[in-house]
């Protein structure tokens, strides 16, 4: 009626936006395109992609935004479209839902009974007088609510339960919209950044990697101390923690020993323990054995530091691993022997007499890896003013789902009339979901009504 003045194109768009068919297409579509981002590793440097896919495919994927798919305009567009669709669907149906929610009890009309999905007739011929009281008690014991009204020929009972479940889907949808709003707030007004602080040092700038920019803080964070415990006899970390102090205008204003699962909060920012590492690479104690002279020589080397052992013979550690091929700590050594040329070979700490790859005139042994005493602590720093909105939305969504699953709307209508000293009960029932569960409930009520007869 009021639609008559509206442009038919707008009407058609509105109809599309409020259709559940679109919802289903968007849900499956979003699921489908999300897969792409799990198959193509996200946010790698372009050089890696060109190596993997070749330049042509790289350019094509890049154009489509496949390398940061969850933030590309069309992906975000699908989510926004889903939110719009959800809102339109809800607005379209809400008036009807409220009507159903407030709707008065239906008129009990005998001719309607036989059209109800479940229908039974019961004749009571014993204990007729006490029956109305018993029926009352029975209906009360079912929970839910019931109303009685009488007319000249008999009494009508309307019992119903779970009407509020009608709201379930709408509460769920509202929760989802709130989650999306929370995510939007977080994206617009928040950030996620990293910083590494060496023990004893301070930082007042953090780095937002995804936006590739520095974010200055209006205070300083100092890492007083970092500690890591390992499970005995393993390299499995048990606990790692950083003693952080927040310094503002030269004064310590806050502090906490943070660890994984226990962050520090200050001025809307949260500092999480994310990783750690040595502040510098370790150094290596190496023994070089001269095969001819049978003389040993100990050297301590830093990574990439070239050391002369004799005239024109140098040794260098190019790489190291805490556990190389399952044989424990090892270094990769480059030995330059004047006339023999240079050679590279791994040297193990725990494997005895593994000399096969040593130099021609020398044998090399790794005595010890000297870990530096200083660590850096890796912190994740976030500001997310939307996070509580997200939790609120999640909570509302869970309530809505629970309502929709554990409750369902059903009614039982009874017409009770006297007929020649007997009582005739017409019983009809309908449910708006879970028909099979309701059938059982309905039959149970019928049995109990019948049983009410004999107990006098």
């Amino acid at each position, binding site marked *: 009626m009021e639609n008559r003045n509206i442009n038919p194109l707008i009407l058609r768009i509105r109809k599309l936006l409020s259709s*559940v*068919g679109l*919802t*289903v297409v968007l*849900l*499956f579509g*979003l*699921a489908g395109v*999300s*897969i792409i*981002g*799990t*198959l193509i590793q*996200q946010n790698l440097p372009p050089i890696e992609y060109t190596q993997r896919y070749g330049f042509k495919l790289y350019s094509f994927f890049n154009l489509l935004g496949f390398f940061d798919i*969850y933030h590309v305009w069309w992906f975000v567009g699908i989510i926004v479209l889903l939110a719009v669709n959800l809102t339109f669907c809800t607005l379209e149906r809400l008036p009807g839902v409220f009507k159903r929610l407030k709707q008065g009890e239906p008129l009990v009309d005998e001719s309607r009974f036989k059209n109800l999905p479940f229908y039974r007739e019961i004749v009571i011929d014993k204990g007729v007088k006490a029956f109305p009281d018993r029926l009352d008690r029975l209906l009360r014991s079912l929970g839910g609510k019931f109303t009685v009204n009488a007319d000249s020929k008999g009494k009508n009972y309307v019992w119903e339960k779970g009407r509020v479940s009608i709201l379930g*889907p709408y509460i769920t949808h509202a929760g989802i919209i709130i989650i999306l709003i929370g*995510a939007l707030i977080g994206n617009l007004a928040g950030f*996620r950044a990293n910083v590494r602080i060496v023990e004893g040092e301070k930082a007042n700038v953090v780095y937002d990697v995804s936006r590739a920019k520095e974010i200055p803080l209006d205070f300083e964070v100092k890492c007083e101390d970092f500690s890591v415990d390992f*499970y*005995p006899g393993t390299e*499995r*970390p*048990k*606990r*790692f923690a950083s003693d952080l102090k927040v310094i503002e205008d030269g004064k310590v204003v806050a502090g906490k020993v943070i*660890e*994984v*699962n226990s*962050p520090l909060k200050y001025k809307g920012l*949260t500092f*999480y323990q*994310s990783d750690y590492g040595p502040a510098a690479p370790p150094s290596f104690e190496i023994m070089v054995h001269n095969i001819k002279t049978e003389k040993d020589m100990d050297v301590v080397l830093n990574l990439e530091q070239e050391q002369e052992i004799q005239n024109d013979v140098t040794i260098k550690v190019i790489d190291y691993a805490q556990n190389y091929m399952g044989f424990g700590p090892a270094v990769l050594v480059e030995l330059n022997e004047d006339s023999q040329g240079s050679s590279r070979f791994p040297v193990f700490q725990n494997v005895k007499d593994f000399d096969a790859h040593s130099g021609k005139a020398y044998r090399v042994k790794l005595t010890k890896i000297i870990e530096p005493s200083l660590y850096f602590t890796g912190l*994740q*720093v*976030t500001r*997310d003013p939307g*996070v509580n909105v*997200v*939790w609120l939305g*999640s909570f509302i*969504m*869970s309530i809505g*789902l*629970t309502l*929709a*699953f554990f409750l369902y709307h059903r009614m039982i209508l009874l017409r009770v009339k006297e007929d020649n000293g007997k009582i005739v009960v017409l019983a009809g029932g309908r449910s708006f979901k*879970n*028909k*099979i569960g309701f059938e059982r409930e309905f039959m149970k009520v019928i049995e109990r009504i019948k049983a009410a007869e004999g107990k006098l």
Partner: protein
Amino acid sequence: MNSIEMFNISTFVYLAGSSVFLWHLISRGSNARIIAIFLTAIGALFNTAGLIVRGMEALRTLPVDERSITLSKLYTLFPVTNLYESLIFFAWSTIIIYFVLEALYSIAALGFLLTLIAFVSMLFASRYSGHAEPLVPALQSNWLTAHVITSFLAYAAFAVAFAAGILYLIKERSNKSPEASGFLSILPAINIIENMIYRVILFGVIFLTLGIVLGAAWANYAWGSYWSWDPKETWSLITWLFYVGFLHARFTLEWRGKRLAILAVTGFVVTIFCYLGVNLLLSGLHSYGGE
């Protein structure tokens, strides 16, 4: 007996239970059915006892002075921290849901399929078997327990929907031919199966939602971001979108019957990828579930 031995026993008892269920379906003898249920219960007993013993074993990996259990350290007793343990917990959840459905619907063919799924899961788990190990810091949290329990209830529900979907498709085919053979006549009416499919999926969606929300809350608490499009997160969202799509197809588009049964079966493939494919084939936050 250590937990691994208990799990091994339970694996073979599930296989036995499954075989007797199959025998029951072929022979239609009611004794076979009772024996099958009994065997499944024995399997579940060993499975449960194994999980409890496993919790104790996990506790024993800690230094002596750290073995006291407080509320904030309840997670130490909940031994689901790697692929081996998670597959066993998956089998356990599936069997628990089976017993609930046995009480409600009493469908022997479902018993056959679900004990079979539990057996396959346990058998697959044995490839990765190993002794309990202490937890890395990220996993030292009660969020872990809540997140894992809710997620696995969802997975198990989707496994049940898958089994019911298959029963539906079998029954639907047989309805076309006039005489139903012994095995088929034992299956419940087609509308009961259909009803069950969407009820368990709705149940699964609720728990998957809780699992995702709890996982997000934990990630936010431990790492400072509730969502980072990690492959596991993304696949849980894909699974969620898929089943939510299913519910809308059922409730508002009023899809019925075969199409929904096919969706329920396909959905489990998505679930399995979310659960195992991500851990075994992709890398990310849940990689500790890989070995």
